């Protein structure tokens, strides 16, 4: 912290620091803008800059826009306040840099702003890292980049197979045209619901005084023609929740492409994938460049081809997204073979929960029902009573089949009987 006797840093230094701070936050994924920098700077004039808490909250108010950004913000702020370089490991090691800084006579928690602002090389370093961040985005041939993603839980998983998987991300021409068909089909079939918003409609039931009055002006205040409004249809949300675990590996590549197409085709489509945990892909699948969007999405899935915990993943969905209304009134499509390593009771409970919020819950299972006398996976059997429509034996690799399936989706509210369910155990 600045000692109370220290002089106030110059305005130029403050501005410089604020801008660097914002850039570092941007680099870590917060969407800062000139506007938020401006807010931050104005906030700095209102608070005591020697007070770490006040500084923290001022930056928080200006830059943080959702609760999942708070942790990142904390880390970057911590670096700022301690006078560390905001982006670690760009030029030399982090320690090397802080050592050099301490050689300048400062200590941890020392005069953060001036030291940091005094670094002339920071800007270059930040820029340097920006290009590096781009290079980090894996591409189809970049095994190096993707292998970084494989740290952690997936280390135990066969590396050789992993390599072929990454290379196989390339799509054939016929696959691409099938995907385009799928997009058309989703656009065409896109389920709708009536919104509460009204629009002028000849067959509406609500009398529109405003429009009638407007019309009557032409006839000297005599309302000859009555106008009506009716509810305006808006697209219904479609939720795709796909299994990309090891047992679904054959389909994952095409599934991912289908998700990309679905998200692009409907304004209200949301894509999630799961293996051991749940990943929301809607944002990373965005963008015009097909291949790049897929690679980006692929890189955000930490447990690609990992083990399966369907119950756990759906629980995560129910607790985070469903509570925020993602599945309320939506058409939910789950694509999974139902191979689950978790507790089937948990799975059943979570599927029931999902169904309660969804308009219609559809489960697409690539495994044919009871083929070779093999019963359905236990998880699948547990979930069965809570599924409105079960599509067995559907090969998600056949994109044309998927398009047909989605085109023929029944989006009506299904009749449901109450199914007794065991109380969830602790």
């Amino acid at each position: 912290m600045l000692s109370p006797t220290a002089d106030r840093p110059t305005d130029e230094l403050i501005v410089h620091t604020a801008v660097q701070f914002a850039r570092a936050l941007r680099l870590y994924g917060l969407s800062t803008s000139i506007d938020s920098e401006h807010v931050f700077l104005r906030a700095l004039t209102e608070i005591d800059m020697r007070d770490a808490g006040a500084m923290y909250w001022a930056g928080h108010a200006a830059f943080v826009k959702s609760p999942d950004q708070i942790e990142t913000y904390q880390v970057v702020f911590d670096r700022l306040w301690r006078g560390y370089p905001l982006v670690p490991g760009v030029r030399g090691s982090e320690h090397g840099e802080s050592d050099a800084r301490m050689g300048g006579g400062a200590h941890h928690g020392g005069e953060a702003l001036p030291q940091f602002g005094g670094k002339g090389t920071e800007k270059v370093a930040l820029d340097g890292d920006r290009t590096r961040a781009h290079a980090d985005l894996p591409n189809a041939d970049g095994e190096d980049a993707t292998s970084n993603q494989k740290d952690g839980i997936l280390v135990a998983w066969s590396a050789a197979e992993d390599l072929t998987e990454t290379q196989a991300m390339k799509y054939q021409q016929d696959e691409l045209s099938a995907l385009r068909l799928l997009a058309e089909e989703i656009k065409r079939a896109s389920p709708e619901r009536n919104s509460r918003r009204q629009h002028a409609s000849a067959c509406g039931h609500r009398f529109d005084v405003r429009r009638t009055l407007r019309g009557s002006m032409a006839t000297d205040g005599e309302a000859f023609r009555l106008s009506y409004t009716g509810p305006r249809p808006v697209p219904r949300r479609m939720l795709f929740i796909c299994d990309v675990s090891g047992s679904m590996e054959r389909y994952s590549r095409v599934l991912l492409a289908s998700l990309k197409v679905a998200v692009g085709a409907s304004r209200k489509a949301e894509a999630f994938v799961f293996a051991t945990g749940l990943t929301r892909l809607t944002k990373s699948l965005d963008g015009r460049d097909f291949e790049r969007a897929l690679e980006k999405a692929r890189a955000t899935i930490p447990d690609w081809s990992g083990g399966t915990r369907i119950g756990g993943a759906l629980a995560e969905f129910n607790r985070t997204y469903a509570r925020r209304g993602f599945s309320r009134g939506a058409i939910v499509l789950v694509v999974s073979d139902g191979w689950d390593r978790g507790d089937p009771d948990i799975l059943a409970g979570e599927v029931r929960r999902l169904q309660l919020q969804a308009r219609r819950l559809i489960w697409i299972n690539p495994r044919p029902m009871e083929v070779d006398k093999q019963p359905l996976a236990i998880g699948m059997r547990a979930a069965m009573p809570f599924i409105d429509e079960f599509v067995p034996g559907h090969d998600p690799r056949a994109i044309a089949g998927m398009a047909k399936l989605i085109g023929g989706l029944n989006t009506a509210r299904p009749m449901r009987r109450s199914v007794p369910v065991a109380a969830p155990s602790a």
Partner: protein
Amino acid sequence: MLGYDSIEELRAALTQQRYLVDDGLGTVVFLALKLRRPLLLEGEPGVGKTELAKALAACSGAPLIRLQCYEGIDVHSALYDWDYPRQLLQLRAGGTTELYSSEFLLRRPLMEALAQPGAVLLIDELDRADDEFEAFLLEFLSEFQVTIPEVGVYKAETPPIVIITSNRTRDLHEALKRRCLYHWIEHPDLQRELAIVSARLPHIGQNLASQVCSFVQDLRWLDLYRSPGVGETLDWIEGFHALGRQSLDAQTADRTLGVLLKERDDLERIRSQGLEGLIARSQQPQQPKQPQPGWQGGVG
């Protein structure tokens, strides 16, 4: 108009209204007042987002103007509407007054807030409105003015204090967030929750309050579908009080658990774990588990 010279002054004023803010919220509210920016509050239901607006209005004695959002809310229910019956009469009577003039203008909450200097405008649960309405708000939030095509531009002389709340049932648009200061309100820690209870319910015994609060704090760690908020804690304590209980006992807790937990699965789960044990465990002195938001300082 609210004018506070320091965060402490603001906090004291809010405390007088029985609304306790922590460092984070205090700073953000202070900045929102100083920078005249709308304040966007998000957080779990029942953490006191709406209450803040009420407390702020009470602080300054300014009117609180509330706009409850819902799907399909439009300009005519939020901003202005024309008084059609009167216009129609005027038209039929052959009057000479301009039909689309301020005489026939009905002011709805947003315009009302522009007209009243220093008003506190609460735009509640904005996430329930649709994208179109959010887009419409942009002009209002950045310029504190609205354009009525027939009349012209209305601008506030003193911009209102705007508090926007959202429950995150959908993501608000980036453009809207950009115009606001943002704060995520967490559930309070034990100490703060106790302080809130004693500020809000001064007639409740310290014993009951602290027992209930530590029990509720423990519940928030159980990863329930719907964690109880401060609002529910207050309700539950009042429930105990209404039943004449002075302390937290398992039997009464079991009977009144529906005041606190509103999901069947949660109720079943808590009951199957044994209320008695949970209550007993929560009453043991313990370290605070919840990492407090804010800059910790002491790391590394």
